[in-house]
């Protein structure tokens, strides 16, 4: 699971109001090297919940001096974009789980794939 996806996921457990962001508990994390694409990162940044991204990076020990609030004029800051590219796309949780911050319900991540299925009564 990449942090781009995590940034868009929320807990859908019945009755939960504050299900975002899901807490990441990772037991295996991988960092891949991908070709930098500044265009894509620039497009995605306005769609992100920035504080949730910083929080997630922190949980994975990948904070890398990313600022806690978005800097203005980020489109032209290549060094910044590269850092964001890395945290959005190159860092992957292979094993672990996502935890609903309100209900505590855990969704397992196995072989990089989160399983978000709920049981009938949830």
């Amino acid at each position, binding site marked *: 699971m990449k942090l781009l996806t995590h940034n868009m996921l929320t807990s859908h457990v019945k009755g939960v109001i504050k299900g975002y962001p899901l807490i990441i508990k990772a037991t295996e994390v991988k960092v891949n090297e991908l070709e930098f694409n500044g265009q894509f990162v620039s497009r995605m940044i306005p769609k992100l919940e920035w504080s949730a991204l910083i929080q997630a990076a922190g949980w994975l020990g990948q904070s890398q001096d990313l600022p806690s609030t978005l800097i203005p004029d980020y489109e032209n800051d290549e060094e910044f974009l590269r850092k964001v590219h890395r945290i959005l796309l190159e860092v992957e949780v292979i094993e672990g789980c996502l935890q609903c911050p309100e209900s505590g319900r855990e969704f397992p991540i196995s072989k990089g*794939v989160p399983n978000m299925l709920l049981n009938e009564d949830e």
Partner: protein
Amino acid sequence: MALHCGRACRQYLLHLAHDNVDFRLPEIKALLSLRKRPFDTSKTFSEKSPFWHLNGLSEDDMRRVMSRTICGKSSFELWGHGTTTDELRTSLLKYPAENMAPYLQHNSTYKINVYTFNKTLVFKNRIKKIDALDFLPFKGTVNLKDPEHIFCLLEDYGSDPNDIPEEPFHIYFGRWIADGQRELIRSYSVKKRHFIGNTSMDARLSFIMANHAKVKADDLVYDPFVGTGEEILLVACSHFGAYVCGTDIDYNTIHGIGKASRKNQKWRGPDENIRANLRQYGTESLYVDVMVSDASKPVWRKNAQFDAIVTDPPYGIRESTRRTGSHKDIIKPPVDFSGESHVPVSMAYHLSDIFADLLNFAAHHLVLGGRLVYWLPIYRPEYCEEMVPLHPCLTLISNCEQTLSSHTSRRLITMEKTKEPEDSDRLSHLADPHFTPYQGHNSFREKYFSGLTKKNTKDAKATPRNKE
């Protein structure tokens, strides 16, 4: 008929492939729209014709369209046309000489092709027709192997193979610009390691879907039923530079009709297959994620938005309570579904729920202007346009039929988000009479699957399908 335009705006002739006829116009319109150009054609335009005039375009526009189109075979800068050889000649003589000159230089090489639609010409007649063009100021040398410029004389002998006229209905002459991507698709099908009986036509339709959805580089594309449908769908989107993600409710084999049994391979899960597919085609860097998730219970936060949603929902049967303990109850006929499959009678049927949920999801999670493209299964004897699901936030763009059997087909529906949803929109579809044909316990399903018998996978593969 005279053709005189300025440099910026020439007339072009698009020669279209003669299959997936319904899908052609929406594809070309979508690709022109990506270039922010309208579909501007002549008064005599006929959608069924294999030759389309396009006005108001630059050569760059044409090349970009051809770099994406599956339905378009080739494109030409149109120099002249007419319903008789004399008309063609008059038309060519009226075409500005300064527009022709750059391509007829004496130190250049060229060749002239003759293409006849719905007729075969013997070699000597082709040569005659080429010779009849010698009034044009060709100054260069003919080079049949590797010419700098290719010109084409195209003749349209109508669409009835049983009534081929002596003379063509229409003749065109132009300079070849570029070919479409049909050959590329052929190579995609051949490359596939995991050959599961897909024909190259299925690969073609996946690329056409990506075009209908106006997928472009740096888009984020989502498939909520990634385990069903063509494996190549997200590959096609990534081929055009989009980042892709998908979810599916179940990646285990389902009641024996699963990917493992079809492929005779170990089913490794959708992530491994989708990622492996992207890797095989060199687009692994565009893989975002695949998750196990129930599409009826979306896991996305409120403002999570995708540029496009492309999908092939399961045609099958679900329990009426979606919160079923065993999600294995979702059944889809195999990907090479040609109308034959066995479905247990005990299952309740709520196909309408899938589409209502899908449209509602798209209304909330598409960017404004983003597109939803999906397949809708149809029982042909009862089909009417009103059966296509609608949503107040989505505008219906196109509806293209692919016939599967005498009584079944599937329609590729393209919708564009034109309005942000308000709370009142959420429940609007429940009052919508459009959904009544799909509701009603069992009746639609029985009709759809009636007369079908259980066949094993081998037979299903051998069943004749639509011509390629």
